[in-house]
């Protein structure tokens, strides 16, 4: 084309980013890569091809790690860990700072290599992925510097096994590696098999930064390698980002191993447009939501919910905008949508979309490349919640949607999903925006914007989008733990029968406490409770799975509790304490009779004090405003988990129950508590205290019975958000395995005792477990 012809047509032409340096780097490495273990690259073996999805060209050959490779990597990490942690926060900060600097110095090389390997537009890798990755290392250099003072009493988890996806290869690496190193862990990281190259470049950077050998290890290969990493017996902490299906398998595979686990999984994130929104901006937001990285984003706003009155206008604007998207060579600087990462993914997208016959499908009227792995931006409107495409994650540039009438219907539709990663809402009305944001079941909510990320702002999901947070101090918590493990916890059995029965003036029938009412057990069975001397002192109901069902139903129904004020919850906790204190002697005697000890009075005192502690916390466990680079605020809010099922400690019949109940309800959760199995009668007395203390029905439900029977039912119950177990029965593995079903949060004792009467029996660790961090981004501007 001549200049004059272009002058007439005003075409963009092509503006390709030069790939020479990145290709030269690959050639310098021999186009064949081994693993990065103990500070050195291994010889390439059992190599597979890493291709450029835009062209199909082979970029390099990458090795499939064997079991021996993974063992060697974990062993190297283990050898390096002690010294790395002992280096101290400021010492580690220097290395993290160097890594950030080196990533910045080689920014273009990283960006081009990422785009070649993954197919994402160079604009995104250059302007988003790589700068965010650098920012993550800078931020965590600071976390390392402050670790010793700000995380006093916490130590590194140890060796971290980390498995990351192909959609943001270097960014996900930085999300995993930076906080781990900052806290004093060493890592074995496995990048996705489609996209290993920037991780290998990062290995090169680690050598340049002089990171001690063994601190960072990178093994490449397919899912089998990932499985070896996460199940390796010497890995202390597992972090995974990827699909919900694989996350569920990891949950099952690591159940009972004692490994700490965080999962960042899939999503079907709602994108809500209210009628008073800036519609043009909301349309543009969708470009960043669902056509960012070809829609291959776990938190992509993929489910469009538009208020009915503006729906047709909005959809028309959206279709017009779709037509101006430019799809093509990811290295072209004027491209909006690049290549799908692999032909297999492309096929999966096609299959899902082609399988749909509902609604109206609109494909962007834009020029498509003739070859390579591309899928056109697609909009499917007029779907109903029942359509599979409204429920299933497509993981491609396909937006599906429906309409709503009122704000509350928007919330209902938005939350009608198994997932809960992110949500976006658009409204110019601060009342609507700030009312709706906390009601959305999502770990991240963006108001009038979308896909905003920063190292200082926690990111992570609820429901089947996983658990744990990355970024901010919340992310650091996942890579550290309280120092000093508890002692082994022996099984505590109830006393067995002797000859006598303790005389009772009037027979008392202990019942279950469900929905604010005393309830007889569904099965109609009870079990005897004896004193140490074998005297029968009463019976406790033997709850079964139906009682669990009823209790969870009651807890779910008490949803108003989450919306109460901290002040009100504090008042109720104080009232419980007051009423318990009034019956101190009776409870003390009961505890002493059941346990055969003499510490009943002290246990009641500590219990009253504990209730005071969580009454105090109820309006003080604040969120924070994260310092993100934005005119606006990112609120890291503390949201209750929802319904928490807890198997209470066996050793402290009253204090154990109070110690798990109080933090949970203080933060706005509803609870299903399974009382101490050997000593259940303090709990059944306790519901009388609850009944007189204005605790709304359903907020606390108390069951008695066999822990081994009830725990699996709670663990696998789909309507329970979290399960805790401090039982002396061996439940941890079963609970973690059962929790895989809906990926509920778990907190189990792994057979370790806790000093319930002491410091370990209360505090922030309980409050952290009782809450999820919800990050609400509110950019503003008059």
């Amino acid at each position: 084309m001549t200049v004059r012809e272009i002058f007439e047509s005003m075409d963009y032409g092509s503006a390709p980013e030069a790939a020479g340096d990145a290709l030269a780097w690959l050639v310098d490495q021999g186009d064949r890569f081994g693993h990065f273990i103990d500070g050195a690259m291994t010889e390439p073996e059992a190599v597979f091809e890493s291709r450029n999805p835009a062209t199909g060209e082979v970029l390099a050959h990458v090795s499939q790690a064997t079991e021996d490779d993974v063992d060697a990597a974990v062993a190297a990490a283990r050898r390096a860990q002690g010294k790395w942690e002992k280096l101290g926060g400021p010492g580690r900060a220097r290395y993290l700072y160097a890594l950030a600097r080196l990533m910045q110095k080689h920014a273009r090389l990283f960006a081009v290599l990422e785009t070649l390997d993954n197919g994402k537009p160079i604009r995104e890798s250059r302007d988003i992925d790589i700068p965010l990755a650098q920012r993550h290392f800078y931020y965590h250099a600071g976390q390392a510097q402050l670790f010793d003072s700000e995380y006093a009493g916490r130590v590194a988890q140890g060796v971290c096994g980390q498995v990351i996806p192909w959609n943001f290869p270097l960014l996900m690496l930085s999300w995993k590696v930076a906080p781990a190193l900052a806290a004093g862990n060493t890592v074995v990281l496995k990048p996705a098999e489609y996209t290993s190259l920037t991780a290998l470049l990062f290995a090169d950077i680690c050598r340049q930064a002089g990171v001690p050998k063994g601190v960072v290890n990178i093994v490449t290969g397919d899912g089998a390698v990932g499985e070896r990493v996460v199940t390796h017996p010497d890995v202390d902490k597992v972090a995974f980002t990827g699909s919900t299906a694989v996350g569920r398998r990891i949950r099952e595979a690591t159940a009972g191993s004692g490994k700490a686990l965080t999962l960042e999984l899939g999503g079907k994130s709602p994108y809500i447009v209210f009628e008073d929104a800036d519609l043009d901006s909301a349309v543009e937001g969708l470009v960043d939501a669902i056509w960012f990285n070809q829609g291959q984003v776990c938190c992509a706003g993929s489910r469009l919910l538009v208020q009915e009155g503006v729906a047709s206008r909005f959809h028309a604007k959206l279709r017009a905008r779709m037509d101006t998207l430019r799809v093509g060579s990811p290295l072209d600087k004027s491209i909006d949508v690049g290549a799908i990462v692999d032909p297999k993914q492309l096929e999966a997208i096609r299959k899902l979309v082609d399988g749909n016959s509902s609604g109206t499908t609109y494909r962007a009227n834009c020029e498509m490349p003739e070859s390579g792995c591309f899928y056109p931006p697609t909009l499917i409107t007029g779907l109903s919640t029942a359509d599979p495409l409204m429920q299933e994650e497509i993981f491609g540039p396909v937006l599906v949607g429906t309409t709503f009438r009122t704000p509350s219907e928007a919330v209902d539709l938005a939350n009608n999903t198994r997932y809960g990663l992110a949500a976006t809402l658009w409204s110019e009305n601060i009342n609507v925006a700030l009312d709706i944001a906390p009601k959305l079941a999502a770990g991240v909510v963006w108001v009038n914007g979308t896909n905003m990320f920063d190292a200082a702002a926690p990111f992570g999901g609820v429901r089947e989008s996983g658990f744990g947070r990355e970024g901010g101090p919340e992310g650091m918590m996942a890579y550290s733990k309280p120092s000093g493990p508890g002692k082994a916890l022996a099984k505590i059995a109830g006393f067995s029968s002797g000859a006598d029965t303790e005389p009772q003036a009037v027979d008392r029938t202990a019942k279950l406490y469900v929905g604010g009412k005393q309830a007889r057990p569904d099965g109609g069975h009870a079990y005897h409770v004896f004193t140490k001397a074998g005297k029968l002192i009463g019976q406790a109901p033997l709850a079964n799975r139906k009682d669990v069902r009823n209790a969870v139903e009651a807890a779910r129904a008490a949803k108003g509790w989450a919306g109460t004020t901290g002040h009100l919850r504090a008042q109720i906790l104080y009232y419980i304490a007051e009423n318990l204190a009034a019956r101190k002697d009776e409870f003390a005697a009961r505890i002493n009779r059941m346990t055969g000890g003499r510490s009943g009075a002290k246990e009641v005192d500590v219990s009253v004090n504990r209730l005071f502690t969580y009454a105090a916390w109820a309006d003080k466990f604040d969120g924070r405003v994260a310092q993100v680079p934005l005119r606006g605020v990112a609120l890291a809010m503390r949201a209750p988990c929802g319904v928490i099922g807890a198997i209470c400690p066996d050793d402290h019949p009253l204090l154990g129950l109070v110690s798990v109940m109080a933090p949970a309800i203080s933060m706005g959760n509803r609870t299903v508590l399974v009382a101490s199995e050997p000593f259940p009668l303090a709990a059944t007395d306790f519901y009388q205290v609850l009944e007189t203390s204005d605790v709304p029905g359903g907020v606390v439900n108390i069951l008695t019975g066999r822990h081994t029977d009830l725990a699996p039912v709670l663990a696998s119950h789909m309507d329970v958000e979290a399960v805790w177990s401090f039982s002396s029965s061996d439940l941890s593995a079963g609970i973690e395995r059962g929790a895989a079903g809906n990926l509920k949060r778990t907190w189990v004792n792994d057979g370790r005792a806790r000093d319930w009467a002491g410091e370990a029996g209360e505090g922030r660790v309980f409050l952290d477990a009782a809450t999820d961090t919800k990050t609400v981004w509110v950019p503003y501007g008059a």
Partner: protein
Amino acid sequence: MQMQTEAVQLPQTVEPRNPGMGLDLDWVMRATANRSAIERRAAALPGRRSVKKDFQAAWLCRAVTCIDLTTLAGDDTVGRVTRLCAKALQPVRSDLLAALGMDGLTVGAVCVYHDMVAPAVTALAGTGIPVAAVSTGFPAGLSPFHLRVAEIEESVKAGAAEIDIVISRRHVLTGNWQALYDEMRAFRAACGEAHVKAILATGELGTLQNVARASLVCMMAGADFIKTSTGKESVNATLPVSLVMVRAIREFHEATGHRVGYKPAGGISKAKDALVYLALIKEELGDRWVQNDLFRFGASSLLGDIERQLEHHVTGAYSASWRHAAG
């Protein structure tokens, strides 16, 4: 090849003028503009579109044709304006245009104060380059209303084909949309056949929402163009303001079928900025708008930078300002 010998004056098509419509306050009040989101889009745009090599040269040539070559100084004289008009006719050195195959390239218009209209019209006689006059008590627009209307009429009489009026900012700031509409209507009527560009002085309107609403009201009242600034405010054309205004233009077109032009003015002095603006218009409004009957730059120093970039494109060596004729 024969194309190269023809003048490349645009437009090739004639767009019917926007006749305006009644004031639709529901529509005006519905207009919102989310500043953060708009700034994000504006910030991302330069990274989303890039034109290189021949494409860049061609785009810069197109930018030249969209320039309202402007002098609005108290010390303007006939001599100064005559020199500017010569530059308007030969904005880029002829050897460079020949090398680009772009002979005959001229700017979009020459823009002056009323007293300079007549000398400009004389200087540009027969060239097809229109003369635009800033008017209505430019830049503040606070002279008596009847004098502002009369000023338009005088400039039209003097041969101005385009009139750049300034709106009364106070009508926007007090939400008196009817007054703004009536004022714009009167200005439009006074223009007769001359095209009218409504200068919103966006730097003085306080919010992007006001910019959106004022844009709609002026279009409803029959503006042929909406323009950001006089160049005299402390903040003149910006990408976020432009985004708001072109989106209003798009919506007006969708609703009425009439295409209103857009003129960012003030502060656009680099060739690179011009490319970003062209990309913005192409993206948000489409190719039809990237022609000088619907798009103008109000600029005085932009041309100089474009000339240097074009010489660099032709020779491969970076240029110097004194190698190009002064305007």
